[in-house]
């Protein structure tokens, strides 16, 4: 493509960076519906990434991975979380962060830069997949971890888990020639089941106690 000639990175690099941006926007978001939108966007970007890999590798297997990504990350997980997010957004106040927002934002940016600085020089051997995908996946994972640490509500923590899983998934997509179907299915279904259970539980907590602030669980310790 001659029009792309002035870029040193390929489309996969752009998708990976866009994924980092959505993770940055979603990780510290206090409004559940917007965080969920970011999560869905991540699913779409992962589907595009899977499609790019499938085009690169050839073979039906890759396209199956695209279908699984689309089904699990774009349709199933957001749908499971949607009703819970709706309920929380409709009844509760904006969710609290454990750290003030601005330091948390600065921390998130530092985490991203650290990931790029440390993982940037590494590249999967024998694969020509650009230079950004692997550091981006580590950055998304770390952002998910950060979100899990600073987010107060159970629902946001579930979303943080999905964000971490998204980063892992990007790494798995880009660092291999596609993993075995059994693994692929297992990862997809595993995450989905976990999200279903946690979504239901956080919704139940919300219904029973109002706030789903996990700090309140501390008083239950013996």
């Amino acid at each position, binding site marked *: 493509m001659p029009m792309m000639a002035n870029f040193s*990175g390929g489309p996969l690099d752009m998708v990976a960076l866009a994924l980092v941006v959505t993770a940055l926007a979603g990780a510290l978001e206090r409004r559940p519906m917007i965080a969920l939108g970011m999560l869905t966007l991540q699913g779409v970007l992962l589907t595009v990434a899977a499609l790019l890999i499938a085009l690169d590798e050839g073979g039906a297997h890759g396209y199956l991975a695209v279908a699984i990504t689309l089904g699990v990350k774009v349709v199933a997980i957001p749908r499971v979380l949607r009703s819970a997010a709706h309920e929380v957004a409709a009844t509760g106040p904006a969710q609290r962060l454990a750290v003030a927002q601005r330091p948390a934002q600065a921390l998130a940016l530092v985490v991203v830069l650290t990931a790029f600085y440390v993982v940037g020089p590494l590249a999967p051997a024998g694969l020509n997949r650009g230079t950004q995908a692997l550091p981006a996946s580590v950055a998304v994972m770390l952002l998910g971890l950060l979100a899990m640490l600073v987010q107060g509500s159970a629902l946001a923590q579930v979303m943080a888990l999905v964000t971490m899983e998204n980063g892992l998934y990007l790494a798995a997509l880009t660092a291999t020639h596609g993993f075995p179907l059994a693994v692929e299915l297992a990862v997809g279904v595993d995450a989905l089941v976990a999200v279903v259970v946690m979504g239901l539980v956080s919704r139940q907590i919300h219904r029973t106690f109002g706030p789903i602030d996990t700090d309140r669980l501390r008083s239950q310790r013996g």
Partner: protein
Amino acid sequence: MTPGDLLLFALQLPLVVLLAPALNGAIKAWKAFWQNRQGPGLLQPWWDIAKYLARESVVSEHASWVYRWAPAVYLGALLTAACLAPTLAIFSPLGRYGDAIAVVGLLALARFALALAALDTASNFGGMGTSRELMFAALVEPALLLGVFAVAAPLGTTNLEALAAGTPVDMAHVLAFGCLFIVAIAETGRIPVDNPDTHLELTMAHEGMILEYSGRPLGLLLLGGHVKQLVMLSLLAAFFLPWGSARDLTAPALALGLVAYVLKVTVLAAALGLTESLNAKLRVFKVPELLGTASVLGFLAVVAGVTGGAH
């Protein structure tokens, strides 16, 4: 001046003058769409400017020559900046005579002229608008320079043509885009920093400064404001979306570059309009926080650009 420069001049200057008001009209129409109302036509800013240019101007008897010359300096500085910025090609008419820092300087010159004029008539609104605008400016300029340096550091030059020619996809550019987008919002006086639709005293910064003007000088100032907006969007397009820009001065390349350029600034303008539609205006004392965020993004972009260049 080579023939190529003159050709670019002949293309770029009319393009900027014609496109800038239309783009502002497009943003207005886009905002109207988000507010579920029927907006004015795309060309309304043109008709507004044409109307003002035909009207006589009423000047306060206390105004000095500063007030009379300021609109010309304002528009002149911004049109010069528009000729420095690469638009439809990776080259620009004045690209060999000034760099990104010259653009920042010209923006500052325009702001300086307008600030003097707004203070000259000693109107309260002008003074208040000026003090706000200059407070924002003191925070916007470092952020703008940091964003530019982040893009320039890996290439080792601040020449705009070189910056437009090569854009690697990396984290530094993502952060720099975030920084410069916030700067563009502030420089164009849009929500959440300023409100371009009103000169109610609670919101106004830029609108307060031009409140005293009428007739032809007002037309020049309005055109200048539109050109400033287009300059900011052109810089964003040149730094971050270099697709399709003409790489030589042949007719097909320039035609493709023109289409690509209009498309790119329209997309960026749509992003500005969407930001404006989805956010509320910040209180004046909250604006420095937003601009501080831009500076932090710019600083981290510089860090990422410098460390990323190592491997």
